[in-house]
């Protein structure tokens, strides 16, 4: 896609702080997030062999994810259900607090800030949710929904200015201004998602986390909403963290792609590179699963077994039990992301050793 080439051009359009062009807008370092399964303290106590022991179990949703998101790019995160991609989005937005690791936004750490300290960042980063049927407050009119972020972040604006801004943002996502007095449930899924996008755009953010924004929509509407997001990126110089499981969307939309498996990133690469030469065995299997028109006898890579449970993580590489190229080292040592000359990063011992 030519979007790869566009990304640096967008960078150069941002006038402020030219030396920061090299610096990623969002840096995620060794992020971990685990959820306790064991309930409160009393529920953790068990009798075992005549002794009272405390037993805690965790779902390891994210295990050491490191990502850089450059200004102006659209980083897509793909992976199957339960691989932790939505959790990454929620931790980045501060909806969940991380169990470990760092998140830096524009060079400043944001993972341990209080909600008050986060407020200036809320204006710069916004989120679009998966389900447009649940992401609009059913008791608020569209006008109220769109005015709320503006009133919060611009307390000095008068009524007219807020209304003008709402009208502008409604026009930019293609919804008529006279929808304002209606309620969310009066609209279809695609219209609601436009409203949700308008709400996110209302505060003029520079970074948007989109958590599967089109997967709840009708296929005929998906392209419209996707185009709307791409137009918004072009017009407003947005940076996206785009969570999806739809590889066709990734190919169309993404500047770079991060493939996640069981809470870890196994490969990050520019979209074209990833689709042309997937390196990680899991990515290869994923790519081979895309139905193609040209071949009538598809060469699927069939993975054996199931995704292991994130409660008891496998040792070493999380993929080793299903990987056709796994050896002893894969069972013991956790692979790190290693940069390749074509701009991709792969976390695989076999790729590192040149076995693959």
């Amino acid at each position, binding site marked *: 896609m030519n979007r790869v080439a566009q990304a640096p051009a967008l960078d150069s359009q941002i006038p402020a702080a030219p030396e920061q062009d090299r610096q990623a807008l969002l840096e995620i370092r060794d992020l971990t997030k685990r959820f306790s399964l064991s309930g*409160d303290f009393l529920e953790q106590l068990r009798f075992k062999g005549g002794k009272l022991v405390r037993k805690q179990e965790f779902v390891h949703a994210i295990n050491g994810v490191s990502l850089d998101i450059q200004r102006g790019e659209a980083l897509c995160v793909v992976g199957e259900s339960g691989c932790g991609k939505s959790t990454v989005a*929620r931790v980045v*937005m*501060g*909806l969940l607090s991380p169990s470990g690791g760092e998140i830096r936004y524009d060079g400043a750490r944001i993972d341990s800030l209080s*909600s008050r300290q*986060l*407020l200036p960042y*809320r*204006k710069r980063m*916004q*989120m679009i*949710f*998966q*389900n447009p049927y*649940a*992401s*609009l*407050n*059913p*008791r*608020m009119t569209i*006008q109220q929904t769109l005015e*709320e*972020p503006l009133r*919060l*972040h611009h307390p000095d604006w008068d009524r007219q200015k807020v*209304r003008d801004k709402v*009208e502008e943002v409604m026009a930019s996502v293609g919804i008529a*201004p*006279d929808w*304002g*007095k209606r*309620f969310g*449930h*009066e609209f279809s899924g695609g219209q609601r998602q436009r409203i*949700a996008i308008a*709400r996110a755009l209302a*505060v003029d953010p520079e970074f948007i986390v989109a958590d599967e924004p089109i997967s709840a929509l009708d296929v005929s509407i998906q392209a419209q909403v996707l185009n709307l997001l791409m137009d918004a990126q072009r017009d407003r110089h947005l940076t996206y963290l785009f969570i999806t499981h739809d590889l066709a969307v990734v190919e169309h939309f993404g500047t770079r792609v991060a493939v996640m498996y069981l809470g870890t990133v196994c490969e990050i690469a520019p979209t074209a590179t990833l689709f042309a030469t997937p390196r990680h065995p899991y990515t290869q299997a994923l790519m081979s699963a895309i139905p193609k028109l040209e071949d009538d006898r598809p060469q699927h890579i069939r993975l054996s077994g199931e995704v292991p449970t994130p409660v008891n993580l496998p040792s070493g590489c999380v993929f080793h039990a299903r990987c056709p190229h796994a050896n002893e080292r894969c069972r013991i040592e956790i692979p790190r992301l290693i940069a390749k000359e074509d701009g991709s990063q792969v976390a695989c011992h076999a790729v590192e050793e040149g076995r693959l």
Partner: protein
Amino acid sequence: MSTYASPTPTRWARFRDSYFLYSFKRTWSAQLCLAIFVSLVIIAFLAPWLAPTDPYDLRQIDILASELPPFWIAGADEMYMLGTDAQGRDLLSIILYGTRVSLIIGFGAVLLQALLGVTFGLLAGYLGGRVDALLMRLADIQLSFSTLMVAIVVGAIVKATLGSSFYSEYAVLMLILIIGLAEWPQYARTVRASVLAERSKEYVDAARVMGLGSRRIMFRHVLPNTLSPVFVISTVQIANAIISEAALSFLGLGMPETHPSLGSLIKSGFDYIQSGSWWITLIPGVVLVVLVLTINLLGDWVRDVMNPRLYKG
């Protein structure tokens, strides 16, 4: 075309165009209930001017005129339309005054319950964790005392420390306090349950991502979406409060005989039901039933109207 260019409609204009009024005009049961309820409330609160006699004034009570039947039964005195009770008080007047007392206690107690219960339920459901555990255990403890027990304890303490004349004087306030404190967990639990359901929805996440504070999210976003069950239980709770008050009065813990509520009227007539003076119990009983029924039916209608999903979409 644009709504912003036109001047903001007045409150009245907005009400006139609202679905609330539209639905009201088309629901005959709501109209009937509202008519009955409003007239009961008006009559009850205008009792000092409407009632033929003042039942609180001992000089107007004639003990010789006790247990007179209502006007349609032979032996009635036309001065007492609905007859008299065992003390010779005009039943119509005493019912009007009693309805007023019952209404004040019912609404007052429910207001207190709702205030405590909604606040605690919202905090417990939204904040979760320790706050939730603490408030819900408190609710459990509260529920393990029955209303009667709270009434007995509070009544005993107040009577012992401040004297029983003080208790009779402030009986209405006492009953509001007792019933309000005894039943707030009903609200807290209902509200908490719906807050838990609402909290996991994405619009709450969206509000958090926007940067709104917990208080604003709780009261502006979550609370309005949990109000339907609050309305529904409010109607049940008003009925419950009025009936709790009647039960307490029946045991001598509620309104004193000199300032009876509908409950104490039913109770005072209960002793005479066997001797043929059924009207002393039955007429206040009918008033109580009508009152509770209209409140419940109105509550049902309001619940339907307040949910925009039921009428639009």
